[in-house]
């Protein structure tokens, strides 16, 4: 039976889709069977980030409308054979799917996977409710900025009203810039933890490789910054129940400057 995780944030642009793609890849690398579902109907991105946009034949909407079964609509990832995508339609709207539909789709996929990760749209309206309905665990992605934190807190409140308890909600802190934190110009991970009063399961460094990887359609954990890949591995292991202190993420973040320098040196020599 699969563990169903929704990745949400309230605010847009904080990196939900990137987290879903990379976490999905990482769990698949660790040997789990993973399905990622794009619930951002009408503004789909996940297929592009995974580099699968021209392989999508059927979408979530076809499944909901009964044209194909959920299993038939899945797209296998090119590199990660354990990773599957259920893409969504760009021409439909969020009102065409109900929370009950989402529950039914996820229920059909339940026996086939170890993890089902749902990419929620920004906002707290219908799309959010659709994405959240089938999930048992919510990952709230936020950046260390006040507007993102305020929206994240609102989302946590809404999730609480929907029956999620504090153990079923965890925070992923994205776009963390250690240099700015050191200079006292950015909120620290402790600030974020105390503002939201929830457990943080990952601190992901701000990294240019992520942008490059996103535009190439190859998640950064597959082909890019080693530090980021290790942080995502930590996140995945924490979700599996291992206790890895957050310092380990921060260590990747802090070493990163030097590591990248070394790596750049190497690549330059070789070329």
């Amino acid at each position: 039976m699969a563990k169903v995780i929704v990745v949400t944030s309230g605010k847009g642009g904080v990196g939900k889709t990137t987290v879903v793609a990379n976490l999905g890849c990482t769990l698949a690398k660790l040997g789990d069977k993973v399905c990622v579902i794009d619930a951002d109907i009408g503004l789909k991105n996940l297929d592009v980030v995974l580099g699968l946009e021209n392989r999508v034949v059927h979408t979530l909407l076809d499944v909901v409308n009964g044209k194909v079964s959920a299993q038939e609509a899945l797209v296998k990832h090119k590199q990660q054979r354990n990773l599957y995508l259920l893409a969504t339609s760009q021409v439909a709207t969020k009102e065409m799917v109900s929370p009950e539909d989402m529950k039914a789709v996820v229920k059909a996929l339940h026996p086939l996977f170890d993890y089902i990760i749902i990419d929620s749209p920004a906002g707290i309206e219908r799309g959010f409710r659709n994405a959240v309905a089938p999930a048992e665990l919510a990952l709230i992605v936020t950046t260390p900025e006040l507007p993102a934190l305020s929206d994240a807190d609102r989302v946590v409140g809404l999730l609480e009203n929907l029956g999620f308890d504090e153990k079923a909600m965890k925070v992923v802190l994205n776009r963390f810039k250690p240099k700015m934190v050191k200079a006292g110009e950015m909120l620290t991970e402790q600030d974020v933890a105390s503002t939201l009063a929830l457990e943080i399961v990952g601190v992901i460094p701000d990294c240019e490789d992520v942008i490059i990887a996103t535009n190439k359609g190859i998640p950064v954990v597959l082909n890019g910054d080693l530090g980021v890949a290790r942080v995502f591995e930590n996140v995945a292991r924490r979700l599996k129940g291992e206790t890895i202190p957050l310092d380990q993420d921060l260590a990747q973040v802090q070493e990163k400057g030097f590591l990248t320098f070394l790596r750049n040196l190497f690549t330059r020599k070789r070329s």
Partner: protein
Amino acid sequence: MDLVDFKMTKDGLVLVIKDYESIQVILDQIVSKLSQMKGFFAAGDKIMLMMERHEMHSHDIPRIVSLLRQHGIDVAQILIGDSFQNDLSSLSRMKLLEERETKSGTKVVKKHVRSGQAVVHSGDIVVLGNVHAGAELLAGGSIVVFGNVKGTLRAGLNEGDSAIIAALSMQPTLLQISGYILREVSSYEEPIVVHVKNGKIVVEKAKDVKF
């Protein structure tokens, strides 16, 4: 003129209260409305409350809520909107945390109150947790928070000036005791008490406070 009306929406029944001068008139009208609708409500029914100029009349909300509760009706949500003609379903809403009748008159909230959540109680409120930015507490009496406060606290809405607000630390959005409002409160990292002294609302460190 009728200032009080029940409206049916797709999300449930909404008690709509128009802008008013005297709360007593509103309370009387609610009672007479309820007596007209006798038999319609069952004990424990949940409705929503919508008030025109909610900001102006927020101090009356606990009285309205407790009056409804006396008639066996729970207020589940408070709808907030600027334009009164708006489609009700589009309005933002404050969900009231579940509230059971307390024998002592004190409501104890054993969790963090988060953005978009509100606690409304006609007596005192004690929170074991934080009050986050965007959350609101409305108390007829005093408010004590064993945690950090970043949201809006309104105390003494029934009791008046003798109510106090106390918290372990504070960077609040707005503090109100009875009719006194304090904005732009500076940040306090130690236990503090807010109370009304000689017709003024004052903020004092808990260890220095003298009533």
